[in-house]
């Protein structure tokens, strides 16, 4: 009902993506990886592969930590 009257106005209120909020971690991680690797790599050619690898590592680490925490939560 609320969604029916909600009007998204770019830069004024949030888009109706409440159910997909978890996916918003991906562009954030991409940004972090790109900026971090921009500082670290010696040449521009190395950047795409290094940034993709860093994204994968961060997301895998987050997923691993989330899994571990949910296991602990289920056991305690």
């Amino acid at each position: 009902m609320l969604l029916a009257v909600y009007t998204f106005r770019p830069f004024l209120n949030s888009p109706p993506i409440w159910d997909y909020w978890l996916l918003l971690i991906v562009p954030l991680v991409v940004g972090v990886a790109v900026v971090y690797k921009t500082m670290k790599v010696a040449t521009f050619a190395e950047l795409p592969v290094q940034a993709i690898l860093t994204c994968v590592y961060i997301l895998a680490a987050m997923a691993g930590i989330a899994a571990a925490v949910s296991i602990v939560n289920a056991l305690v």
Partner: protein
Amino acid sequence: MTDYSATDPAHDQKSVSPLLVALAGWVVPGLGYLLVGERWRALVAGLAILVLIMLGVLIGGVRVVELPGYDSSGNAILIKGTNQWVLTARPFPTLMSEVWFVPQILNGPVTLIIGQQSLSLTRSGVATKMHGRLDDIGVLYVAIAGVLNLLIIIDSAHRASKN
């Protein structure tokens, strides 16, 4: 350890004061790299930070940046009796009450511009503060962009000191 001797075709080392490089990097994300001749680093890092800021404002609305010293209606908070602005009278506690502004301001004047827009749109009733996860995520995007900008400021200033 980063090898600063490594060069690429777009790399053209220049001797500039590290302080000036740091200041330029704060004013415009990536400008510090440009001053030390790291053109592709300047472009990629600067654009990535600006995209993160814009995504944050798009996700949470313009009120993800809230300037300290203003209430939820966008009016300056004055101390009763003295009529002094709370930010000048008690800067530290006021800043701590809007603690996300601290990493956000590391993005430079762009944060102040967004904050000013946030205030004027709030006063005119066009923008309202969003609540919930999307607002939190938007705030986080802009704050993380600020921390990343601090990293590239430090890195570009360090490169300037090596030249």
